[in-house]
Structure formats: structure tokens, C-alpha cells
């Protein structure tokens, strides 16, 4: 496979996963904002995906609709849905011969949907949840079509590596920012609301209830989101999958440079696998998550250097 094609598939996949993450966060936080007694601040949500100037945040942080517009249709926000899907589609456009026609069509429809005037106006005046639902459905269609129609070859491995790398970075980021906030404001953890919405925005709520029967406890939340083997958005699950698809890639693609990357992924996987809540607390959550993020970025850079670079 052409290096450029591999790179485009990988980025297409990262952008699509990112848009999925953003939309879910927005949906849950919007619900949370309608539930809040005090003014609801969107600051942490904005900060997960973008670092705009303080003035911009201050301007919109308490205005849900403004934040939604900034995060969905804001042209100045590099991680707004409209910008991300444009990038995803541009990546897909130049590798159309490696995607199925169904998948390409789905991406197009997603793009035209985000640009639809009707949607933009109901984001301003109508029910934002319907808008978010409609967009989320489009991402789900993308995943479904990919699952059913895409060839299980090299391209798919690159796409899955991109997807799980993006997902693990997102889960790590969300956890880091949310727990940081709770650190500076311990009152947040006293009620159940804060942790419940944290779990909901990661789609972890149901699984949490089934796994832990004694209410909301920060350590249990940590265990689920970082160390759980079966939760599809946990850091461990995602890293396991990066490992899995990289091994598959290596079977047909054993270049010398793959050893280094193999080592990096394996090391990260083991680090997480052999962590416990105690060892993480001992090290300090922020430092622990910081190290994981650094390793994930390292993997991204090594992929870029060894597989995508134009030498």
C-alpha cells in the first residue's frame, strides 16, 4: 500500500473517532447543563479539544448554545465538527479507490449534513439534542458500513490503529481534565452528579452500574476507564487493540523499523496492564496519565516516521 494512502486512511479514521467523541461529550454535557442549579461552565469541555484565547472562553463558557455552535459549526475552532469532517473527507477523497463506495457516500452525506442550513438553524433555535443525535447517527453509520463492507487488509489495520490511538488519547484527556478539576474543587466529588456525567460522556454509565454495586466512587471510575479489559473506551482496551492491529500489520509488512514500534506498543500495553488503582494513586494520577499520553504521542510519531513519511 502507498505510504500516502496509509497515512490518509489513518487520519481519516482518527478524525472520525474524534468527531464521535466530541459529539458524545457535547450531548451529555448539554443534558448536564440543563440539570445544573448553578451556572454550568463549559470550560473543561472546550479545553479538551482546543486551546483558544482566554477571551473567547470567557465569552461563551456559560452559554450552551454558543458553545455548541463553536464546537460544531465554528470555523475558527480547528477541532469543530465541521472542520474535522472536512479534513476527514479530504483525506478520504484522495484514497477513494481504497474505500468502498458505500463508505465514501456516507462520509459525503455526513459532510453535507454538517453544512446543512436547516441543521445550523436548529442549533441556534431548535432542540440541540436532535441535532447531536442526527450527527451521532451519521458516525454510527460510518462505523457500521466500515464494519460490513471494508476489506480486512492492510488499510483496515491502519484505520483501526488510528481509531484506537485517537480513542485512548481522548479517554486519557477526559479523565485527566475531569479529575484535575475535581482536585481543585473536592466538593464536586461529594455528590453523585459529577461522576455520573463523567461516566455518561464516556458511555460507561451502564457498565459501571453493573460492575460496581456500591455507588459512585472515584477509584472505581478510574479502574473502569483505565484498566477495564472489556469496556470499549477504556485506555487498556484501546491500547490492546492498537497492539492487535499492529501485529496483524506486521505479518505482511515486516520492515526493520517495525521492531521499534512493536516495542513501544508492547511496553505501553504492559505498563497499563500491570497497573493497579493503588499504584496509580501512589504515582499520582496526573503524572500517570501524562506518561501514557506521552507514550501514545510517541507511537503516533513513530508511525509517521516509519510508515507515512515521504523520503
Amino acid at each position, binding site marked *: 500500500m*502507498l505510504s500516502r*494512502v496509509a497515512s490518509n486512511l489513518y487520519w481519516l479514521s482518527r478524525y472520525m473517532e474524534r468527531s464521535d467523541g466530541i459529539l458524545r461529550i457535547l450531548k451529555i454535557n448539554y443534558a448536564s447543563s440543563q440539570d445544573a442549579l448553578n451556572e454550568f461552565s463549559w470550560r473543561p469541555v472546550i479545553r479538551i479539544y482546543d486551546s483558544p484565547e482566554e477571551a473567547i472562553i470567557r465569552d461563551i463558557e456559560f452559554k450552551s448554545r454558543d458553545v455548541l455552535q463553536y464546537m460544531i459549526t465554528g470555523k475558527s475552532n480547528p477541532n469543530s465538527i465541521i472542520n474535522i469532517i472536512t479534513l476527514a473527507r479530504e483525506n478520504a*477523497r484522495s484514497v477513494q479507490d481504497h474505500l468502498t463506495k458505500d463508505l465514501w457516500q456516507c462520509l459525503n*452525506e455526513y459532510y453535507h449534513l454538517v453544512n446543512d442550513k436547516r441543521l445550523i438553524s436548529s442549533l441556534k433555535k431548535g432542540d440541540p439534542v436532535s441535532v447531536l443525535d442526527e450527527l451521532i447517527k451519521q458516525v454510527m453509520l460510518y462505523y457500521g458500513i466500515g464494519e460490513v463492507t471494508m476489506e480486512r487488509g492492510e488499510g483496515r489495520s491502519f484505520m483501526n490503529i488510528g481509531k484506537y490511538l485517537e480513542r485512548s488519547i481522548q479517554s486519557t484527556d477526559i479523565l485527566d481534565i475531569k479529575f484535575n478539576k475535581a482536585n481543585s474543587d473536592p466538593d464536586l466529588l461529594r455528590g453523585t452528579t459529577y461522576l455520573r456525567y463523567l461516566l455518561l460522556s464516556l458511555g460507561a454509565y451502564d457498565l459501571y452500574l453493573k460492575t460496581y454495586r456500591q455507588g459512585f466512587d472515584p477509584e472505581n471510575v478510574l479502574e473502569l476507564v483505565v484498566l477495564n479489559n472489556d469496556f470499549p473506551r477504556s485506555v487498556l482496551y484501546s491500547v490492546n487493540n492498537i497492539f492487535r492491529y499492529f501485529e496483524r500489520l506486521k505479518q505482511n509488512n515486516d*520492515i526493520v523499523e517495525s521492531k521499534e514500534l512493536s516495542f513501544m506498543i508492547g511496553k505501553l500495553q504492559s505498563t497499563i496492564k500491570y497497573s493497579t488503582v493503588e499504584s496509580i494513586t501512589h504515582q499520582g494520577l496526573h503524572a500517570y496519565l501524562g506518561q501514557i499520553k506521552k507514550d501514545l504521542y510517541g507511537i503516533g510519531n513513530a508511525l509517521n516516521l516509519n510508515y507515512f513519511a515521504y523520503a
Partner: protein
Amino acid sequence: MSELDFLNHYPQTPDTWDEMFSSDNNIRPPYQKVIEYLSTESADGLAKKEDLAKNLFMSQGITFTVYNSGEGIEKIFPFDIIPRIITAQDWSFIEKGIKQRLKALNTFLKDIYSNMFIVKDGVVPADIIYSCPHFLREMYKVKVPYDIYVHIAGIDLIRDFDGTFYVLEDNLRTPSGVSYMLENREITKRLFPDLLPQCKVRSVTEYPEILYKNLKAISPRQISNPTIVLLSPGSYNSAYFEHTTLARLMGVELVEGRDLLVENQTVYMKTTNGRQQVDVIYRRVDDEYLDPLVFNPDSILGVAGIMSAYKKGNVAIVNAVGNGVADDKAIYSYVPQMIRYYLNEEPLLKNVPTYQLGNKDEREYVFANINSMVVKRTNGSGGYGMLMGHVASDEEIHQYKQEINSDPRQFIAQPTISLSAAPCFINKALHPRRIDLRPFALCGPDGIEIVPGGLTRVALNEGSLVVNSSQGGGSKDTWVLAS
């Protein structure tokens, strides 16, 4: 209101061949079934079909982007839902005519880049060859596989007032539009269920297979699975959709210049598994940009060193480099002589009479009759830089004459030929619009094959004679009937 209402009051264009209606306003027999079908629909029903067509083009990403004040706006190439029909008899004539013409043009290219017999025998003047900017000395004595230069040709045909076919232009470099031939047909299948088989319309779907077969056959390495790539200038090119479609339909890799490299006069592509040798390149990049070491040094669309690999015979390039000397507008007027010279046959398809403005007598004649002439640049394309004498203002004519006088070789003139008209569905009624026809011919070691169909381009502006998509042109599905 009767359902047939939108069909009536069709304003025929005077002195023009109408494809659907004869001069006494009767429906021509091949269109009978289409009209029967249309008359069961209301104008609103057809308008709905038109919307469906637009949505299908949009959702399949068959669009191009127009940049306007920083905002990219996605547009589709206008598509008219009413098909254009060519009878089996007309098609068999067109097919023979194009094959004959291509055979001569291909022989001409081989001759020009080797012995130049046609110049030595005084059939084509030497200065017209040497002054052509597309005549590439780099191609002299380069051996191309099977002596095929023109693998893919798009010959533009028009019809005069009496229905006679004329060749307007030979496109022998990188003719585009074939993806619209394929997509228009797919859309028509959706718009008019069951109508195609009822009318016995021949299928066009074989095109990618034939092209692939020909590309594979000319691979310099005779191996079972040569690497064939389609070289595109990239996603900002207006024909990018076509490049992706063809790559997908043939199952070949779509590459850009930056994906390729040349070492030891061999072309490789950069893959995740290291380098992979490339055998055949179907390029959609113009000669000028193909190799910065040989042609335009600023080009980043091409591949440095690719010409050395080509000359060495390590890679096949389709179409051959240097074909522009055969489809230059000044050479065009010599094609009938070429056919007589190389094939000893009379040309089947007529040329539009063409005046060389480099020739003093012809120039004076053209200036005297400028109001009934179309003046074109010999190296122009896309409908730009033309003077339409019958509509131009005195000042435009004056300016254009000055340009001509400064370098007459760069211009030719043709009498204004009135293109044939076909009914188009515009604003919920049928209106006549001018059309042309571009069939696509494929040439391989087994001979020339022409897929029964082509691209019918439409000048959508009322009264316009320019069908180019850059000048407000659209397209129609083109039906060739089996009997």
C-alpha cells in the same frame, strides 16, 4: 392542463438540426419510446427526477469546488435528464470514421517522431510541425510499446444543419469526461426505470475493463501482474473525481507525483512495504508537468527522472508523451491529407473547413469575413480565448486582429458551424440547446475499440455554441441503440 403540455410548444431553432424533432415538427423514430415515457409524467414529476439526479451526484461526491471569497462551494456539473440518442446506423458510421482517423493520427505520430516521411513528401509543411509548442524533440526516436501513441482518444463531433457529422477537435493528450459517460448512465437507470432495456440501449460499462486490458498489455516487463498506476495531479484538479472513479473501476493504484520516485531509470512507488516497481502509468498530468528535469522545472506534479525511465523503455506512459503535435488546431486541417497519405483511403468523417492564419491569403479572407468565423488559438482548450465573430463587438474584433497579427501561426479560423440542438428540460419545459458528442476510443495491441456511447456536452445558456464545462456547459446521457 394536459400531461403532454410541457412537450408542446417546443421552440425549434431555425437552420439547425434538432436531434428529437424533424423540421416538420414530428418526433424522430428513435425518440418515440422516450416521448411516450415522458408523456406519462407531469412536468412536476420530471422536476422531481431532476432533483433526484442532483442529490445522487451530491451524495456520491461527483462535485467540483469553486472558490469564492475564501469559501469553497461544492457544485455538480449540470446534468440534463433527457437522453441523447444515436441510431445504430449513425453509430456504425461514427465508429468506422473514428477508427480510420485514429489509425492515421497514430501513424502520423510515429512518423513525426522517427522518419518524417510526411514532411519530406511535402504533405504537411515542416514549419507547422516545428512551430508547434507540443512537438517535443525529446521524443525523437523513442520506441513506444507496439508503436501505440494514442491509447485513449476523445474525438469531438458536431452536426451541421443537415445532420452531417463533422470532427471539431481531436483530443489525443489526456481527454477527460469518460467518468461522466459512466455516471450519467448510472443516474439515468435510476431516473427512468426499465426504459433503457425497452429502447435497446447498448451498455457502456465495459470501458474500464478494456482500458485495463490495454494498459496491462503494454507493460514493459512481461509478468502476470504488472503494477499499473493512474497518475493524478491531485485532489485540487477539476477532473479528480474522474481519476478516482477510473482507478477504482480498474482496481489500479491512484498515485500523485510525490508517491513516485525514479532510480536507475526505473520508476518506483513508495509503499508501506518499501519500494515497488511501476510498469505502466496512465497519467492525467500534462506533458509540460511530467518531468521537472526535462520540461517545466517548477513543476511539483510530476516525477523527476520519469522521462529517462520512459526513453529507456522501463515504464510505459499512457498516452504517449508528445501527442500534442497531432491534435494541435493547426495540424487538424491536415488530417484528411494524412488519411489519404498513410491509408490511401478517403476520409469518412468530415473536417470543419479551417483557415490557417499563418497563411497570408487565408488570413485576409478570414478578416474580410470575420462575422461568420470562429477564431481559435491553436494551443487553446476549454473554450477559452475564442472569438465568436457573429456575436463579437467591433472593438473585440479589432483587438483580436491585433493579437493575430503579432503571431498569426497561433491562430486558426473556422466558419461558424451551427451545432445540432437537442431538447433539454429547463424550468419545467423542453427547450432546445446546442450539443456536441465526444466518443472515447481505446487503442491497444488488438486494435481500436470504441465503447458505444460517449459524452454529450450541452451549451446550457440559451443560444450559446460553447459546450465546455468551464463555460456554462452541462451533459446528457448518450444512448447508442442496438438496432
